[in-house]
């Protein structure tokens, strides 16, 4: 996690991005190298990331696209 740059809006992260940031954040918190107010910000972001991941998992629906020539066309599966 880069402290300097403004963190990306959690709702824009993919599952993988959110999950790997969550892991990095836990490790950062465990290393205990941050000022207290910063760790509270980290913790709040961690909770948001965790929530984002849960939401993505719960709402996941297999997305299937078919290659038509060199174009991708959505395919309805059921």
């Amino acid at each position, binding site marked *: 996690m880069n402290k300097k740059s403004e963190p990306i809006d959690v709702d824009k992260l*993919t*599952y*993988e991005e959110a*999950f790997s940031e*969550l*892991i990095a*954040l*836990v490790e950062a*918190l*465990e290393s*205990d190298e941050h000022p*207290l107010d910063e*760790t509270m910000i980290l*913790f709040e972001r*961690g*909770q948001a990331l*965790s929530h984002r*991941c*849960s939401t*993505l*998992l719960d709402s*996941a*629906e*297999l*997305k*299937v*696209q*078919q*290659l038509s020539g*060199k174009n*991708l066309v959505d*395919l309805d*599966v059921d």
Partner: protein
Amino acid sequence: MNKGMLANMYPPSLFKSTISLTVSELTRYLRQLMESDEILQNVWVQGEISNLSRPASGHIYFTLKDSGASLRCVVWRSSAARLKISPQDGMGIEAHGNINLYESAGQYQLNIDTLRPKGEGALHQEFMRLKILLEEEGLFDNDRKRPIPGSIKRIGIVTSPTGAALQDMLNTLKRRNPMLEVFLAGTAVQGDGAPDGLVNAIQILNQIVNPDLILVARGGGSIEDLWAFNDERVVRAIVASQAPVITGIGHETDFTLSDFAADLRAPTPTAAAELATSVTMDEMKDQLEHASSMLESAVNDMLGIKRNETVDCTTRLQYCSPSRRIQNSWQGLDTMTRRMLATQRHRLALEATRLEGVKEHLSSLNPMDVLKRGYSIVTRDLDNGLITRTEQVSAGDKLSVRVKNGTFPVQAQSQDQERS
């Protein structure tokens, strides 16, 4: 050898005579001839089935023929049960068995133990030739194969868009990890166009989609149905694929050259989809739960540490606080005061003692005490000076003599009397 056998049965003298063989004798001779021939006892024959009959006995009878000849065939019941294909009139087959003679009809026939579709033998040979060739080139080497990524996001599928295999795979993927993005590159999987279609599908998936993984799959079928997957071009396309490839072609027992070239071979399309989703969504949920609880405990631990540090620092702070210093100062002051008073008292006592001594000393020096012992003190009246030497006194000086109980006046006489 056969001639020898016959010669044993019929001595030469008789054989040369005009005595003829019975039909049975000749037929038995022919039968023995056939049954002792290695080629005829272990032979593959190909042709087209006609006049097929399946009587209630369970044996199967038919004629195998080509444009120039025909051959009576029989499949005995015990072998019939084990046939992999069911023979039909008009079907082109390859049959394996041994030739013998049905003596009562005077007909030789093929006793069949194995049937396979016509051309399969040639296909198998071609398969083996190509397999050895590609194997020598290293295309099937294990150290060339890439690991299958554990966590994937984008998966490509190369299969028939209308086949059951596709539905099986999609159902499996949906069940195990619905977060996946699936990219289908549909192609014919059998027939003349299939190899080119498969190659194109693999290439275009890599070019356009760049997936984490590609499944190349087809449901079960005959060896001819699966033949496209033994095509050298398809094998090379799998090897060249940037994304790792899992094959799921046919059934458990089917092995194609594509399977050998794939980074991982699954026995069926469904199994391929399962191997592709080694990390299922349930596992991801577990991981997430674990990470979330780690987050909580990391913060709680950290807060606990900070709290302890705070308590510790507060204690130390209080130790350094001004009030404590004031207390200390008070205490110091009291101590000093106490010491000062004690010192003072001591000093006073000391002085008192000294004073007493001096007083005693002083009293011992009281001249009056000397007078008590009979001494006297003489002073000149003129200046009240103490007379201690003769020279101090001149004749006529008025003096006072002090004795124990008072003073009386005297007058000095001539000194000469005294000095002599």
